C-alpha cells in the first residue's frame, strides 16, 4: 500500500510580457475585439492583486521573470517617471513574484517563461498556467519541449486572457465576485468623474 497522499496542485499564473503591456494600458482600446481582450486582462490583473493581497507573505499566486517585468516597467515608466508612477511599478512588483536568478536571467524572454512553467510543474505542488496573448507562444512551447523528445507534450495549460478568465472564474468563484464588484464601483466612479467634468 502506498502511503504517499497526492496533494491537489495549487494554481500559479505565469505571466508573459503580452499580459503586462495590455493589462496596464492607460487607454481603453476602441476596437471591439481588442476591448474584449483588454476586459479579460483587467479582470485577471485585478484577480492577481486581490489574491496576493490576502495570501500570507511568501505565498505565490503569479510569477514572471526579471526580463519580462523589466521590459514592461521600462516602457511603463518612460524617460522621466513621477514618484507615483514608480510606486505603481513597485506595487505591481510586490503583487507577484519576479524571479531574479542568474540561470533564468541569461535566457531569452520566451525561454525564461517556459523554464519557470516547467520548473513549477515538475516540483509537483503547482499547476502552472501560462498566460499569453501571443499566438506563437504555443509553437514556442512545443519547440522547447520537442528539442529533447520529438513526442513530448506541453504538460500545462497555455491560455489567452479570454480563455483564462472563465477558467479562473471557475476556480476562484468568491474572489471573482469581489473583483467584479470592485470593477463595477471603479467604472461607476470613472463615469461620475467624467460627468462632473
Amino acid at each position, binding site marked *: 500500500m502506498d502511503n504517499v497522499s497526492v496533494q491537489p496542485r495549487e494554481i500559479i499564473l505565469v505571466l508573459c510580457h503580452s499580459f503586462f503591456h495590455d493589462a496596464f494600458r492607460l487607454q481603453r482600446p476602441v476596437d471591439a475585439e481588442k476591448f474584449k481582450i483588454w476586459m479579460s486582462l483587467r479582470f485577471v*490583473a485585478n484577480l492577481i492583486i486581490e489574491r496576493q493581497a490576502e495570501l500570507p507573505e511568501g505565498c505565490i499566486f503569479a510569477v514572471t521573470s526579471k526580463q519580462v517585468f523589466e521590459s514592461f516597467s521600462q516602457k511603463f515608466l518612460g524617460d522621466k517617471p513621477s514618484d507615483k508612477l514608480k510606486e505603481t511599478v513597485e506595487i505591481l512588483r510586490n503583487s507577484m513574484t519576479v524571479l531574479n536568478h542568474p540561470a533564468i536571467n541569461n535566457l531569452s524572454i520566451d525561454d525564461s517563461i517556459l523554464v519557470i512553467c516547467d520548473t513549477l510543474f515538475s516540483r509537483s505542488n503547482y499547476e502552472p498556467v501560462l498566460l499569453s496573448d501571443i499566438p506563437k507562444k504555443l509553437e514556442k512551447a512545443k519547440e522547447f519541449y520537442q528539442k529533447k523528445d520529438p513526442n513530448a507534450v506541453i504538460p500545462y495549460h497555455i491560455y489567452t486572457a479570454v480563455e483564462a478568465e472563465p477558467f479562473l472564474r471557475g476556480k476562484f468563484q468568491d474572489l471573482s465576485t469581489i473583483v467584479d464588484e470592485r470593477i463595477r464601483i471603479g467604472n461607476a466612479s470613472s463615469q461620475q468623474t467624467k460627468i462632473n467634468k
Partner: protein
Amino acid sequence: MALDIRIRKVKMLQGRAKVEAEKQSLTPNDLVIVTTSVNSLPEYHVEKVNGDPVSYLLKRAKS
C-alpha cells in the same frame, strides 16, 4: 523613498499597520496600499483602494 509599498487586505494587517487601518474605519475586505517608511521606527501609511486596484493604480499614477 518608501522601504516597501504593496496592496494588502485589511484583514491581513497586524500591529501598527492594523491600528492605522482601524483609524480609518475600514472593513476587513477593503484593499489598502500600505507604504512602509523608516524614521527611526517603521511607519505605516494606509491608503484605501477605491474600486478595482488596476484602475485605481492607473488613476493614482496620473494624478
